[in-house]
């Protein structure tokens, strides 16, 4: 087990890296351009198992949303785009809040999905989930979104239990020139963005962008007006430098601010014991990220990344400030021609101050946490790279649950270049969130007066998953490919809320009884299912993509658990989901696309199954201008998608929406 990094070892790391980068190189100094064909054809290259491995050979359930998919579907935010991925459950709670997860057990703070933006984690350790309203990247600058379902634990660590969403933005070199985007609609009232990319010289490129969006409020499930209007503004930059002999350096950062409205149901100690409060949350923050990548000789590469992230969120119920500092290092090298080793070290420092008010309290109000991690992964290939084994583990130490280890074994077999069979067994953990450790949430009040309150517990341990996966990928022709993934997830120590001894509390007055529900890990469960993705270029002008998800969730309380409603979480995910996209591009000027969706009902909520249909028409009057019209959720004036479990947020229904957009490249 490698020694944990501390403040003293960081300078040593720095020296080590400087040394490696200055090792004499193996490559020739004469230019290849001076050689003729015959000489070029004689040169041998060594391929690094990790780098040259195309997605079609990866031993995992991977789906890539390309920039073209984002443009053609007309989505205005990242969670909307995630609806086209098999294996993901995406449900809109209100205009700024979403419940997104992979392979079941969804919630507004779905705890088992890791989201990364250019390597920066968007996962909030306060609630173990993602605040989607602040992940507001300019969609035109996204190169691709890689969605990996299943434990991504070896490389990405704890909390990537059911999947990783990796949002990768384009290099500054690929976003040169200016871009102006204006959109207006009935639900999305306005969206305006600009971006400008330039270069200082041929090796140094940059871009800057700004974006502002505003949304109208919707209606509650019972038809009353909601208060979920919101707006957000964001600005940022990216700078890339290409270093002389390979190697890249990147510096990027964002600043954002916004306001979102929500309706909250708060328990009060006098009749009628519940109050609907309109809250205006304000959020703001920024981040700065730096990344360095360098090839060392021909058989190795190193990656170093560091970022600082600050977020603040204020609402009548909770005020929170958080600072994160994260440093990660990775080294990849070929041990032999058949074996590649990648290892890494990481350190994260989190400091947060949270002040509760109405119904949420945290004790202590401020806390700083340190997380150390190390990982190693060995990739072996046999039979001329037809058979590939990957074995690795991540070891992590955090302040809540101590040491956690997450091993994984993956095998893939590609007997021909057009199909691959793969399988994997992995262990992953979800560490407790700050609220599950330090928090108290007042949930419901009754005449008495009596209050039911949820309490965190510092004896809470991590939830554990053992995942078994099997997959098959086949390119049936140059125009048709399919990707099938089967999984069986065995969960243990899932979080439950156990009733404790009631007591009397005198403040705030009037004196009232409190029935405590304390967090514990007394539930087990299985989630199993199948995911299918088919991509078919029907003809030069017609393209279609299908995503099918089938899933079953079974939860079982331990014998000594008294959490009466824990097992009802089974009904928070649909059994079936289908997404079908069709696009028609008759010429360079015109493009039309349709996107149909079916999502099964949520047995545990008032949410029935629904069909959704989006339609988009785009026209290029001249080469660099695009005008488009989009209609979303055309089949129903409005429909509900989710009713969240925490914070008693009042959800709004998802409405039929139209908008028009102008995109101008200059």
């Amino acid at each position, binding site marked *: 087990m490698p020694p944990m990094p501390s*403040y003293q070892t*960081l*300078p040593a790391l*720095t020296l080590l*890296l*400087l040394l490696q*980068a*200055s*090792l*004499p*190189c193996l*490559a020739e100094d004469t*230019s*290849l*351009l001076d050689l003729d*064909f015959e000489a*070029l*054809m*004689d*040169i*041998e*290259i*060594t*391929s690094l198992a990790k780098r*040259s491995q*195309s997605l079609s050979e990866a031993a995992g359930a991977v789906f890539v949303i*390309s920039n*073209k998919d984002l443009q053609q579907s007309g989505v205005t935010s990242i969670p909307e785009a995630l609806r086209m991925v098999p294996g993901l459950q995406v449900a809109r709670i209100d205009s700024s809040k979403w419940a997104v997860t992979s392979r079941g057990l969804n919630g507004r703070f779905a705890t088992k999905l890791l989201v990364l933006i250019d390597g920066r984690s968007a996962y909030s350790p306060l609630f173990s989930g993602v605040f989607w309203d602040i992940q507001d990247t300019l969609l035109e600058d996204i190169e*691709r979104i890689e969605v990996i379902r299943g434990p991504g634990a070896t490389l990405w660590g704890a909390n990537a239990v059911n999947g990783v969403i990796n949002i990768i933005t384009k290099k500054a*070199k*690929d976003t040169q020139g200016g871009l102006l985007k204006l959109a207006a609609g009935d639900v999305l009232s306005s969206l305006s963005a600009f971006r400008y990319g330039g270069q200082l010289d*041929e*090796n140094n490129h940059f871009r800057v962008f700004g974006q502002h969006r505003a949304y109208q409020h919707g209606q509650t499930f019972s038809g009353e007006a909601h208060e979920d209007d919101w707006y957000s503004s964001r600005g940022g930059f990216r700078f890339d*430098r290409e270093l002389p*002999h*390979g190697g890249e*350096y990147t510096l990027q950062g964002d600043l954002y601010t916004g306001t979102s409205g929500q309706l909250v149901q708060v328990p009060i100690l006098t009749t009628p014991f519940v109050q609907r409060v309109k809250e205006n949350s304000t959020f703001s923050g920024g981040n700065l990220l*730096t990344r*360095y990548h*360098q*090839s060392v000789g*021909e058989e190795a590469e190193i990656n*170093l990344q*560091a970022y*600082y992230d600050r977020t603040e969120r204020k609402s009548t119920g909770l005020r929170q400030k958080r600072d994160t*500092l994260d*440093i990660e290092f990775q080294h990849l090298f070929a041990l032999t021609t058949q074996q590649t080793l990648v290892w890494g070290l990481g350190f994260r*420092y989190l*400091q947060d101050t949270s002040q509760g008010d109405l119904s949420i309290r945290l004790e202590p109000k401020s806390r700083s946490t340190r997380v150390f991690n190390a990982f190693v992964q060995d990739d072996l290939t046999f039979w001329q790279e037809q058979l590939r084994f990957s074995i690795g583990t991540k070891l992590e130490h955090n302040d809540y649950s101590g040491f956690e280890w997450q091993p994984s074994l993956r095998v893939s077999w590609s007997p021909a270049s057009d199909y691959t069979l793969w399988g994997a067994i992995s262990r992953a953990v979800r560490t407790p969130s700050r609220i599950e450790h330090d928090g108290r949430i007042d949930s419901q009040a009754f005449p008495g007066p009596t209050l039911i309150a949820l309490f965190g517990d510092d004896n809470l341990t991590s939830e554990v998953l053992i995942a078994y996966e099997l997959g098959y990928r086949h390119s049936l022709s*140059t*125009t048709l490919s399919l990707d099938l993934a089967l999984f069986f997830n065995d969960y243990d120590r899932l979080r439950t809320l156990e009733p404790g001894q009631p007591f009397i509390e005198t403040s705030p007055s009037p004196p009232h009884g409190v029935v405590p529900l304390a967090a514990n890990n007394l539930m087990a469960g299985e989630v199993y299912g199948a995911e299918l993705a088919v*991509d078919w*270029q029907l*003809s*030069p*002008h017609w*393209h279609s993509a299908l995503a099918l998800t089938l899933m079953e969730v079974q939860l079982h309380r331990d014998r000594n658990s008294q959490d009466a409603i824990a097992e009802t979480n089974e009904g928070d995910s649909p059994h079936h989901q289908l997404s079908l996209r069709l696009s028609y591009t008759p010429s*360079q000027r015109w493009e039309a696309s349709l996107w149909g969706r079916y999502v099964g009902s949520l047995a545990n909520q008032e949410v029935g199954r629904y069909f959704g249909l989006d339609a988009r028409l785009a026209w*290029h009057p001249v*080469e660099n201008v695009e005008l488009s019209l989009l209609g979303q959720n055309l089949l129903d004036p409005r429909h509900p998608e989710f009713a969240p479990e925490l914070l008693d947020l009042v959800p709004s229904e998802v409405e039929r929406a139209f908008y028009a957009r102008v995109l101008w490249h200059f």
Partner: protein
Amino acid sequence: MTPRASLVSYALLLALCFCSLPGRAAAIELEYKLKAAYLYNFSRFVTWPESAFAEKNSPLFFCTLVEDPFGSALDELTQKKVRGHPLAVRRIEHIAQAKSCHILFIPTSQHTALPHIFSALDGRPVLTVGDNPDFGRAGGMLGFTLQGKRVRFVVNVQAGKKAKLHISVKLIRLAAEIYGGNMDKGKP
């Protein structure tokens, strides 16, 4: 210094350090340096119709579509000339911008869009080069392939003829596989 401040300063130090390293002695991915050299040689053994150039010494454009996996390897080409035409590099985001390209490199990520790309280029004298052997079968003119540890290429002669490009017999003879020609498939 508080632990937090020293961490931030270490992070900044590392960031600045690598930004200004002279970058000694590390090789670019040899594979793409090789492919860039191939592109240069392709341009020497392909003849474009006169209409493809405004003047005798106007630049010959190498373009990459959406992604550029060559790093700085393509930029080294700009020091060379082919038949009096200086070489230039353009990175384009959309096939509609390919009007001035003479050679267009299409990365594997654009594979599903190939029919759309080829119909957009229909008849224009643009040499299409792809990063996998399927490219030739799908209608692209030259596709890179790996034979063991060596970089080779396949050629689609008919696609070249449709674009009014003359591909030298020498280039065709060196190809690992030939598609759409009067000659038999496979090396002659």
